[in-house]
């Protein structure tokens, strides 16, 4: 059992008494072992080119063709109908609505792998989702990422906790604590009131300490004195933070390396495509899930979506990496028989403007498209694609689904009550 208390205040935690309100959450959380994998598309993904609104194709093509002079057709941002038809539009796994849906929406042609997961009925697409205008800075990257992480609006600068961290406060954890980030960074998403995430950089093998001892005896002496120094106390609050982190790091090395050694996942990498950094992170998460780490929330990111300029040069490739990495991860969990209690959800800072700008890119906009994938997921199309022609005062599509609604359903899946975390109760979107 991992010593979670070391994550609170390090050496200061001995006097900690769990707040009474947490025990009820703990009791609830302990009754389940669901796992959520959170994947951030950082930079603000262009939802319009991710799931293309065929039903509004005329408006889409018009607004996505830059009027720059001279026009460069290779830089036009609309995906052509011919390309979409070649990739296939079969979109809805529900036979009753498939025919109509096929004329309404299409995946970006680079997303073949996820389209197949969709066809198999394990992928939910949420359209028209975003941060409501009540968040005045919703087109800021910092605000968008913070809001999606905290599960709140208007709290940047004051909020200190994230929705997954709060949902797992009081959860027992296992070999590892309940929340693990694979990004090397400590995202707000995983921070609770009483627990902090374990932060690892991929691969797991890098989570070690080398003290440079010149002999076996010297190595042991250094280890002893190092442990003594890290356990000492003084009053520097900043130092106490470093000390707490160091203690939790050195305390977790054996646990992480134990899982790493037991589960190399050498068969993870698909030879069908070139692995991206997202694959590397998801591979480590797969190792931790197969290795029964006990962690309940994992965090990975995929960057590069801030496509202000020459979007075609990078965006289709990013979507291809994203699609391949997610589909491969899910297929691997299935092959290892550990997928029945795992849900993968995606988010992005915000969406992008409908109208392309003069540099063949798109600026920060409102609604995005997110995905939820896994065995427990009822695949299909959720939310509502907003009108591309009836826009709000900022020339943006009107948000149809509050981002907190998606988080609310995921928090419920983790076994916690979402209402106190995201601030209000939302009707279930229905994918879980």
């Amino acid at each position, binding site marked *: 059992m991992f010593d979670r208390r070391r994550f609170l205040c390090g050496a200061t935690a001995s006097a900690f008494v769990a707040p009474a309100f947490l025990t009820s959450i703990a009791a609830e959380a302990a009754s389940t072992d669901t796992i959520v994998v959170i994947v951030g598309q950082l930079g603000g993904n262009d939802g319009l080119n991710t799931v293309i609104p065929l039903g509004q194709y005329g408006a889409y093509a018009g607004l996505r063709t830059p009027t*720059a002079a001279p026009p460069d057709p290779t830089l036009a941002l609309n995906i052509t109908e011919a390309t979409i038809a070649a990739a296939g539009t079969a979109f809805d796994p529900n036979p009753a609505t498939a025919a109509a849906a096929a004329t309404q929406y299409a995946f970006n042609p680079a997303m073949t792998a996820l389209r197949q997961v969709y066809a198999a009925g394990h992928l939910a697409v949420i359209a028209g989702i975003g941060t409501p205008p009540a968040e005045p800075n919703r087109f800021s*990257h910092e605000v968008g990422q913070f809001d999606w992480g905290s599960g709140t609006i208007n709290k940047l600068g004051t909020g200190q906790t994230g929705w997954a961290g709060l949902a797992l406060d009081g959860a027992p954890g296992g070999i590892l604590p309940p929340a693990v980030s694979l990004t090397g960074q*400590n995202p707000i998403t995983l921070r609770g009131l*009483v627990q902090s995430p374990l932060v690892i950089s991929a691969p797991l093998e890098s989570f070690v300490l080398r003290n440079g001892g010149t002999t076996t005896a010297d190595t042991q002496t250094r280890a002893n004195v190092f442990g003594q120094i890290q356990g000492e106390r003084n*009053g520097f609050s*900043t130092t106490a933070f470093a000390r707490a982190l160091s203690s939790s790091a050195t305390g977790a090395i054996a646990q992480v390396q134990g899982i790493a050694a037991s589960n190399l996942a050498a068969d993870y990498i698909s030879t069908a495509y070139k692995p991206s950094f997202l694959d590397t992170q998801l591979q480590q998460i797969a190792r931790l899930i197969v290795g029964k780490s006990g962690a309940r929330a994992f965090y990975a990111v995929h960057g590069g979506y801030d496509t202000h300029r020459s979007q075609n040069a990078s965006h289709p490739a990013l979507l291809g990496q994203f699609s391949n990495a997610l589909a491969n991860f899910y297929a691997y969990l299935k092959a290892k028989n550990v997928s029945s209690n795992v849900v993968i959800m995606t988010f992005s800072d915000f969406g992008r403007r409908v109208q392309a700008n003069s540099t063949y890119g798109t600026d920060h906009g409102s609604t995005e498209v997110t995905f939820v994938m896994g065995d427990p997921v009822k695949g299909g199309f959720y939310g509502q694609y907003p009108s591309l022609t009836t826009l709000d005062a900022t020339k943006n599509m009107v948000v149809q689904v509050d981002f907190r609604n998606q988080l609310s359903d995921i928090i419920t899946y983790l076994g916690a009550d979402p209402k106190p975390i995201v601030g209000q109760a939302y009707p279930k979107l229905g994918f879980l």
Partner: protein
Amino acid sequence: MRFTLNVVVVAAALALGTSSRALAQEKPTYATVVVAAQSTGTDAGIAIPPNAQVRITGGGTIRSDVPLGGCDATVGPRGCANDAMQKRPEFTAPAGALIATFVDLRGAALSPAFFVGEGGLAIAPAVPSRLLLRVNGYFGGSASGAFVATTALTLAPSATIAANPSSITQRTGIATSAGTRAVASARNALGRSFAGGARTDSSAAVPPRYTAQFMLRRLGFGAPAATIDDVVKRGTAAWLAEQLTPSAIDDTAAIASLQPKPNLTDANNQIIDSDGFERRLIERQFATKRQVQEKLVLHWLEHFAVGNAKVNDAALMSHYEETLRADALGNFKQLVVDVAKEPAMLYWLDNDGNNGANPKTNPPNENFSRELMQLYVLGTTQLNMDGSPVLNANGVALENYVQTDVTTAAVALSGFKTIITYTPGQDPNTRFSVAFSAARHGVAAQRTLLGVTYTDPGTDQCLNAALDVLVRNPSTAPFEAKELLQRLVAPNPSPRYIAAIAAVWAKTVDAPDQIAQVVRAIANDPEFNGSYGANLKEPEELLVTALREAGGKLLSTPNTANGTTLGGAASLAGGGGMLAQESQEPYNSPSVFSFYRPGQKESLLSQQLMLTRFNHMTTLLANNPATANTSFDTVTLAASMPKTVAGISQYLLDALVDGGTPALAASVQTYLANGTDDAHIRGAIWLILSSPEYEVA
């Protein structure tokens, strides 16, 4: 529930040489203070005699600002009707739920905040002080005032706490020997109260050597013993005055030691530089005599973060760096104007070739416009001079700008384009220029930006006109002052400090040496010295300071014999290099937000990154100075050390952590008792460099 706190002031007026036995005979004195219910602390505090040892314990209830308890009233299916209706959980305060700090009688902080209830003895400064209390929001790895006291918090005497410090420490879990050593330390009697993290602002109470080391570490990258000797002799004021006019400092030798700028292209016109431009920046931090200027270069490189992953041209990055250096201590508006016209910035935030001539039919790219306002100049929220947000009558923070301002600024800043000529063999440093096209900007026009109407001349002076509106915005001075304080002083500078520095910023807005004047004011404030230990070292500071303070070498000559080539895992710079592994590869900020947000250096630390920082010290200490380009020359360093265990320990602790805590000294001596040969000296340096004390500055 009643919140009870016990403050025991033990043994006032600890004198040099006083033993723990003498202390144990002192009778404890008690003091009382009340933190009002529904508040987050008290500024009234209690008076503390000089050099007193203060033990504070407590328990009680506090309330979280995070709603986790449902609604106060039964409401409809959509949940709480508003935020105020949501219940905030109240719970027993854990250890660390309260923090305390010593301030002088004028209110200036004398110590960083420390946790209440950790069980440690806080040693008061050598001057009369007051102890302030804050209800601490320090949970989950970040600090804020997210909690409030539910009931009045009363500090009261407790009969259960003994006067004998060693018995106190036994009960609270600190090793007796360490506690006794802490009490007995003559160093504490000098006012260097490590146990409490307090540090007096009186330079008379702190050894001048430590004051000098502190300033050179905060305003530069630390220094070797000989340099410190020189600064002590001349005084820190004289050193700072000299540093603030960097052009008067002869830096020829340092610049000559750097590896050359990229000046060759290959057959495909690619610059032959590898990661040399990153390495050159680190080499300069290590070698330059213009330390304050270089520290400000680091500040501006992170403030105006640019990533070569997108710019992809080493010569443009070098040019950008030189522009930041030229303006580093100069005038802020000039700095922003120059940055806006740099090819690296034009590429990074997509203002290159931006067309604002027909905004309705062909909207300009807004990337630079938005980040210029949000991150570079004034921030999203209107600020008072003390850095607090300006609130409307309903208590809601006011926005600095709206979408219309972003669009207007995008037009106002459009029309610039980088021209690069590609001639094989041409010096890449001279093959580019920036041109302005009126056709892509639009003719002269009246514009309204941030509520200010001005005339855009429709020429390349359009930048100056728009930026003039931005830099004179009332939020700019507190926004920039606070970010600079967060870099150079502490993540949470006091409102008084921010207001004082913002006032200097605003007053000098037209001065050619504006930033130099601001830095001088920062260093002369009592809170500067009082912030000892309050700031985490960034990765560049961590590595370069270690090399400068402990006999390190950082050579520009690549040495492939032992694998420590430029770039690569064994080198500081470059993709995959040590700084990259520590999330701070020079010039490769992952986004426009730089490597961390101002005031949140903690995000540079995670369990993984702590291990990485320790492991990198292991790697550097294993490098052979005869062959590696980055190493510690401990043999030369040892020539100036005493030869005893205590002497070596003291020498290294003095150099790296201003003497360190008595407990750290004891640990280092425990290690050195096994040997004082070169391998053990290297081991002792590693133990200090991986100690929490070294992680902070």
